[in-house]
């Protein structure tokens, strides 16, 4: 490699960072729920699929964009609250692994229900943002990626403000800090959990629309959860900032590895490379980048 192509490197890097934002979008939904209820919600991917599929099906049946968005939002909030009521509440105080396995079952139910209701064919989703690249300082950047990044930034800003300045946000933080203490001072835990699940449903809607526009709305959409897991591991399950930073890191290293290391192995390494990065990092810092020091004691 005598004449190393730096502008190409920069392009790959920027592309990777922007695709990392997409991973972060999914990861934030996980963090919300993990932070307040200690559940690693594997069904987040299924919720994402459900949201995107519902939205697309409504639009295809002639609903205007805004109305479809509103209806889907309402359905996702209802779904989130129903999950909390039916699945999670009977399992309160069970070991985290049990809760995780319950969400694994839940993801099967939601995936099956979504496709039973709306069919299994692939839908195109057009958000009105064209995926054409344009040039900034000699680097090609996709307009869609920039839009996704802007949406992610807005969402994070909104969530941060919500957690910091509202009364219910304060309650969220109290519960995240110490469930029993929060309960003791009279916070209504079930109501807070229901709100969090509703919020996670809304986040799934946003992520689902962006991913759906990128990949097409189909079953494989629920597999983005597998892209988000290494991000979560790297960033720590309970940190929104961690989800963002880790998403960027994973996105960038994944793209760089794919371009510069991948050819030596015949390509296709992106299915596991992110996991390798996350694992290697964990062996040095078991709590992730921004995770709380004590991850799990038993």
């Amino acid at each position, binding site marked *: 490699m005598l004449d190393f192509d730096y502008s190409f490197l920069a392009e790959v890097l920027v592309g990777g960072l922007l695709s990392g934002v997409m991973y972060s979008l999914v990861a934030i939904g996980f963090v919300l729920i993990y932070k307040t209820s200690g559940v*690693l919600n594997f069904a987040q991917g299924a919720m994402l699929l459900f949201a995107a599929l519902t939205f697309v099906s409504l639009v295809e049946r002639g609903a205007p964009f805004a109305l479809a968005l509103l209806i889907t939002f309402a359905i996702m909030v209802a779904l989130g609250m129903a999950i909390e009521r039916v*699945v999670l509440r*009977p*399992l309160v105080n*069970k*070991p*985290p*692994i*049990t809760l*995780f*396995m*319950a969400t*694994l*079952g*839940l*993801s*099967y*139910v*939601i*995936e*099956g*229900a979504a*496709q*039973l209701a709306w069919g*299994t064919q692939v839908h195109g989703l057009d958000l009105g943002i064209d995926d054409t690249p344009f040039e900034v300082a000699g680097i090609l950047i996709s307009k869609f990626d920039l839009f996704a990044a802007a949406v992610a930034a807005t969402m994070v800003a909104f969530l941060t403000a919500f957690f910091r300045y509202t009364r219910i946000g304060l309650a969220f933080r109290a519960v995240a800090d110490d469930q029993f203490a929060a309960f003791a001072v009279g916070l209504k835990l079930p109501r807070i959990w229901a709100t969090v699940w509703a919020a996670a449903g809304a986040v799934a809607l946003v992520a689902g629309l962006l991913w759906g526009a990128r990949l097409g709305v189909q079953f494989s959409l629920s597999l983005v959860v*597998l892209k988000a*897991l*290494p991000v*979560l*591991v790297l960033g720590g*399950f309970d940190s929104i900032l961690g989800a963002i930073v880790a998403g960027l890191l994973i996105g960038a290293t994944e793209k760089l590895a794919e371009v510069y290391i991948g050819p030596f*192995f*015949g390509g*296709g*390494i992106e*299915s*596991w490379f992110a*996991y*390798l990065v*996350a*694992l290697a990092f*964990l*062996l040095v810092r*078991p709590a992730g980048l921004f995770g709380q020091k004590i*991850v*799990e*004691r*038993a």
Partner: protein
Amino acid sequence: MSTAVFDRAETKSWRVPSWIGPIAVLAVAYGVMPFIGGAYIFEAILTPFLALSLAAVGLNLLTGYAGQLSLGSAAFMAVGAYAAYNFNLRIHELPLIFSIALGGLSASAIGIAFGLPSLRLRGFYLAVSTLAAQFFVQWALTKFGWFSNNNASGVIDAPPLSILGVSFDDPVGRYLFALTVVTVLTALSYRLVNTQTGHNFIAVRDNELAARVIGIPILKTKLLAFGISSFIIGVAGALWAFAYLRTVEPAGFNLDRSFEILFIIIIGGLASIRGAFFGAALIVVFPLILSRVGSLLLGGHFDSGVLDMSQRIVLGSLIIVFLIAEPDGLTALWDRLTKGFSRTSRQQPQ
């Protein structure tokens, strides 16, 4: 997770000795089934049931007993199957049973390698790291032609099943072959969980700090759990490939298969050897029942797509219902049922 591990017969009341059950099941499996079952029963139900049960026994040792959640079982099955295939292919005159054992040992080595992070990671972090095994193994088997003897899509064909010149190449033979392997490994597993090592597994699961304090070598115990569990799962993979499907590709050992095995032990009962068999029976039989019932009720509307989706919904709901209502799974249900019977039979003479 469950703590009920031992079921010892009560001393005073009259009860069937605990060894009668397994012996009776084996007697039926060896003595009756081969004569009454048709080829379909063996090929579509009994052989996959045996392979899945064995995989579930393996995962149960790791997840149910030692408390280390693994989402990579299918990867270890794949390693077992492909390694057994290659040992059989490349070492001439190696008896098939040794190939399968070596396949299990290869899975064991890979399992220990991916279990190493368990020394520093717990819970979800470890579960995610086992996902790395899942994706890496599947990628490697597809990418490197050597593993599948340069088949373009990574497909391998099973060698003929024979031991000491006796051929097992008909449906009943393959069933008996699988049955024997499963019986031996299950008996060993049952023995294992009642030894000090098995007790160490449980101690590490229930309270790692306390286990360390009373002098249990945590590192060794965890790696042993990964090694033994992966060996059994690897042999199960070889059975799945050689005795059941005969032709397998890496995509057959995907994440859904891993989840399936995890579901088996949840439904059957964590930390229960019998539970693996109960759960596997349900997982194998219930899609068949569902398709029959579905087409009976809905007629032509019940196509394969609808079947697939309703299967997912019912399976997912079953998991949730079991976790909420019966965390110890079908084993606990079974025990309650049989205990009820024995109590009524005790009361009757009065």
